[in-house]
């Protein structure tokens, strides 16, 4: 996950979610489809990635933050 925060520990679920939204904005439903993860895991993982400031949200869709 390219976001300049190499020290942040990510769970396998968070990594999978991060990989799915590395290049495009996706909704929770689209991430579920792309990753085959259960909905509750995607919602929980998205919340955790937002708290770690690794992804951004726009109009209900999520994408990995770009390196600055």
């Amino acid at each position, binding site marked *: 996950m390219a976001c300049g925060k190499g020290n942040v520990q990510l769970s396998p679920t968070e990594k999978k979610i991060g990989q799915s939204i590395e290049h495009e904005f996706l909704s929770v439903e689209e991430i579920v489809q792309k990753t085959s993860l259960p*909905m509750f895991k995607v*919602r*929980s993982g998205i919340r955790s990635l937002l708290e770690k400031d690794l992804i951004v949200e726009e109009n209900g869709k999520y994408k990995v933050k770009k390196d600055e």
Partner: protein
Amino acid sequence: MADVQHVQTEQQVEQEVQSLPRIGSPAPQFEAVTTHGTIRLEDYKGSWLILFSHPADFTPVCTTEFIGFQKIYPQLKEMNVELLGLSIDSVNSHIAWIRNIKEKFGVDIEFPVIADLTMDVAKKYGMIMPEESSTEASRAVFVIDDKQIVRAIIYYPLSTGRNMDEIIRLVKALQTTDKHGVATPADWQEGDRVIVPPAPTVEGAEERMKDDSLECVDFYFCTKEL
């Protein structure tokens, strides 16, 4: 007088905390640390959820139940139902127990388990039966639907393991009721005839008796196939 009022308020609060959510009421929201990270009840919106508690990790009856729940988990997922366990143990204890179940019984527990050391969730759901044990959760099962409404509650004592077939039957019956607007009779199984709600008026009752698609013993007791 002020003291009396204060005591009453405390009792009311205590009663509120210990009371069960009612069938038909919104499921109490929570955020909890689990074996799969921090989970909120709202994360399950859109899918059904079986929230169940067990007394303690590394105990024999609970081990048989966890193996039982894991065995029905694939079938539940096909029914859009998720599983979420809970006990008053730490995440480390849960992880160690889950690893032990895999090692000793060859069963991989895939659903998350809440580490409710503060008893926050257990108290919200009335899972503690102080007369039985004040430090362990009883064997409670809450069926919560996709709109986060409590649809069914089952309680078993510490000494008796739950019946997985009955849990599946219960969820199937509830989902059938939602889909077809019918009720299900005693011992109903998928494929059996279902009960049509009684006609609410005299005219409706007359109509009901003439309806060839139904099998009626009397106006209040009509069944049909789905």
